[in-house]
């Protein structure tokens, strides 16, 4: 398919803004660029068709099943898009006086309150723009807290070896040293290894529960107790909260600070990679360190207040506001019972798929999973030469987006499947059948599978060449 610049014809344009109705003023010529930027020159119909073609060459939740583990690709309600497009929300300038943006502040306050109720935290900020941004925020808050009590020698963050890559990367950005603790044979935190790792230099622990192999760590209360007794704080990576809403709260499991992903758990769409939103919640003793501003009620009106010992700002203004609007609309529709129903069915769907596949595929941990589960395809690879990658690519020919591959790192030939609660039984059955057919194919016609996908606009790209001789613009 052509690139947009290849569809460009000199002199073509859209008619967008009128003639200037004041005297023209152009800055001194020494400040000006020599030539106009080389942007495409196209008509509106070309634009419309070009991007329609790009849409056809993509796969979204609206096109089909998207069981991308750890990403919670649930259905995004249509009404949320309509609501986020209200002019009152899109037309508000972030630097308007608080009295003029009571609607926005009400959205923020209401969402903060509901997220606190769901997570058991005492205060929230909506400023972080994504999950990783939230992790960085929470770690800076831990750092600021430790500085405030004079415990600056605490410079280690403990991260399980199964953690999301963002965890150690965020800890490094916050200036901590990272201590990786191995997981036990059950996929959960090895308590003995954890006890060995803690000491007077520990600032905290980053953990997601359910963890990245999809299991609820039943020792969670002991884990957070070990960290607290050593004087550290517990950070909850909320990437997997979709499994436990209305079942158990991070705040009750002993966590002090956490982030959520509104674009995962709270049904805001993923936008081809973003925008997301990564609100950070914390217990009362950390609230004064929150970044940005906090919305409070004062004399019958809502006002933005900067917390007393705020770590500063994580980005300009008050966060990805329109994403927050979508999350609030979603929570309002679900209510207390719907939130719990979502988690229950996310977990049911994952277990249904796990059980229906475990006679041929090897679950990495053959026990009740939460909202996702991990298959280990080492046996398949050894016997057929077909890898997790080949099986994943095979799914594409069924119109199914592949699961997360080769993660977590502690499982070899891993496929991580997260169906979410918004899929029908028929969709799950189709995916189960597809995976079973792929298994057969691996034994009967491995070469076919190794060349999959066969139905897409391109075959497997040469990623080595792309990295060796990068072509990064037209």
């Amino acid at each position, binding site marked *: 398919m052509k690139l947009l610049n290849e569809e460009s014809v000199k002199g073509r344009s859209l008619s967008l803004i009128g003639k200037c109705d004041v005297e023209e003023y152009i800055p001194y010529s020494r400040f000006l660029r020599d030539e106009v930027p080389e942007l495409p020159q196209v008509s509106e119909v070309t634009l419309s068709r070009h991007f329609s073609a790009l849409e056809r060459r993509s796969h979204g939740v609206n096109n089909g099943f998207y069981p991308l583990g750890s990403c919670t690709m649930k259905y995004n309600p249509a009404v949320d898009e309509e609501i986020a497009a209200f002019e009152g929300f899109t037309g508000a300038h972030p630097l308007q006086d608080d009295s003029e943006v009571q*609607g926005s502040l009400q959205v923020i306050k209401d969402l903060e309150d509901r997220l606190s109720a769901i997570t058991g935290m005492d205060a929230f900020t909506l400023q972080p723009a*994504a999950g990783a941004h939230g992790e960085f925020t929470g770690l800076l808050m831990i750092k600021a807290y430790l500085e405030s009590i004079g415990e600056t020698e605490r410079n280690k963050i403990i991260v399980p070896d199964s953690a999301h890559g963002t965890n150690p990367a965020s800890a490094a950005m916050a200036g901590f040293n990272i201590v990786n603790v191995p997981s036990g044979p059950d996929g959960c935190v090895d308590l003995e290894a954890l006890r060995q790792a803690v000491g007077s230099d520990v600032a905290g622990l980053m953990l997601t529960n359910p963890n990245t192999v999809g299991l609820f760590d039943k020792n*969670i209360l002991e884990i957070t107790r070990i960290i607290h007794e050593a004087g550290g704080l517990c950070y909850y990576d909320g990437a997997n909260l979709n499994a436990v809403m209305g079942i158990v709260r991070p705040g009750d499991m002993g966590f002090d600070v956490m982030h959520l992903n509104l674009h995962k758990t709270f049904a805001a769409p993923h936008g*081809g990679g973003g925008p997301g939103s990564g609100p950070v919640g914390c217990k009362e003793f950390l609230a004064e360190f929150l970044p940005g501003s906090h919305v409070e009620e004062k004399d019958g009106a809502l006002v933005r207040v900067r917390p007393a010992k705020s770590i500063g700002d994580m980005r*300009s203004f008050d966060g990805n506001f329109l994403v927050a609007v979508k999350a609030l609309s979603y929570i309002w529709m679900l209510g207390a019972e719907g939130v719990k129903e979502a988690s229950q069915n996310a977990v049911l769907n994952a277990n249904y798929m796990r059980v229906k596949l475990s006679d041929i595929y090897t679950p990495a941990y053959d026990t009740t999973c939460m909202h996702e589960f991990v298959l280990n395809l080492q046996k398949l690879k050894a016997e057929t030469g077909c890898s997790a990658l080949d099986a994943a690519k095979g799914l594409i020919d069924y119109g199914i987006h592949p699961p997360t591959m080769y993660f977590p790192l502690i499982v070899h030939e891993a496929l991580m499947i997260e169906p979410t609660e918004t899929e029908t039984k028929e969709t799950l059955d189709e995916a189960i059948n597809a995976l079973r057919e792929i298994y057969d194919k691996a034994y009967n016609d491995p070469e076919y599978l190794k060349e999959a996908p066969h139905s897409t606009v391109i075959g497997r*790209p040469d990623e080595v060449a792309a990295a060796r001789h990068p072509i990064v613009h037209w």
Partner: protein
Amino acid sequence: MGTFVPGTSAEQDQMLREAGYKNFDSLFADVPEEVRMKDLPEIPSGKSEMETYEDLRGIASRNKVYRTILRGAGAYDHYIPSIVDRIASKETLVTAYTPYQAEMSQGVLQQIFEYQSMICALTGMDVSNASVYDGATAAAEGVMMCLERKRNKILVSGCIDPRIISVIRTYAHGRGAEIEIIPEREGRTDLEQLGTLADSETAAVLLAQPNYFGIIEEAEEAGYIIHAAGAKFVLYCEPISLGLLKTPAALGADIAVGEGQPLGIPLSFGGPFLGYMASKAALMRKLPGRIVGETTDSSGRRAFALTLQAREQHIRREKASSNICSNEALCTLRAAVYMSAVGPQGLREVAVQCSSKAHYLAKKLAEAGLNLAYEKPFFCEFVTEGEKSGEILEALSNNGILGGLSLENGRILWCATEKCIAAELDRAAEIVKEVLR
């Protein structure tokens, strides 16, 4: 209650049974009894779609939306072509995620590649990433990527948006980098002071073009001083102005960063916005975030894929160039459609009209009795001084005009864009004149 769970209770029972579970509770046996919840306090019952729509429409209407906006300071009210909203609402592009699976994500990948190409055209740089969260985080990532073992100091112009400086300070505190502010002198970065401050420990120097006060900096000269000290030059550029002004590459910058919101993204109470980042080729492998590259598939067909992933958190973990994972991809779509819709001449025309209308407004406000704070060339923002700034802004607001941003000491930071028609600018000046009379 609202629900997006499609299964009927009969189906759910069947699935529980087939998976070997008695009921939902048995799925959660690993959750310790003492912390398992009975219900969710403080959350009301669910509402219907209709109720939710109407109630949130009521809340949205409590925001005051202005027809004429003379306030910028980091968020700009530009005309957004209708085609931008149409294309950015395409369901597949809205509901996809990061294009990890290239074969079924060529559309998203090509769109990001096109965005990267247009950012390179705009800035004159060699490589652009697929976005970071906003302009301030782009600035912070831009200076942080220059840190070296023996260069731990970052110089930031005092003529930069204080919100951006706040973000840079927050980021820098994490890594333990030292931040020094280059003083302002008559609305511009003091280049003499820059010469004194920039030394062998300086990793990067950040200036904004135009700066927070709207003034066009002598950025080229700054670049010589910065490079003489062996530091990297990071330039924060407002993208519409690049339809007219010299590119950061032509000004000698090593890294160009900025807020992409003016490129077809609504004000939206501050987000989602779009941080763009581009650099010279030599710094390509230090850039944070996703980068899409062109390659071929096994049959030699043109293909796009995420590339240079060895920089990223999912491969490098604590040694990654940044922790960024989700970015602002859908905003890059808006920006790409915007830039293609206006085209090269159109972008120049928008820039010329912003400049022309801001200068017209400045002239009218001066006639009304306000003084220009600086006698320096500016683009589409400028600062006035004078009495009664509070009353002026209130009177404008009462007349449906969002006036400039109140700064300290009675100063006001004004902005005009192509959307401001002459009659409204005249009316604003009349209101100011009335207040000052």
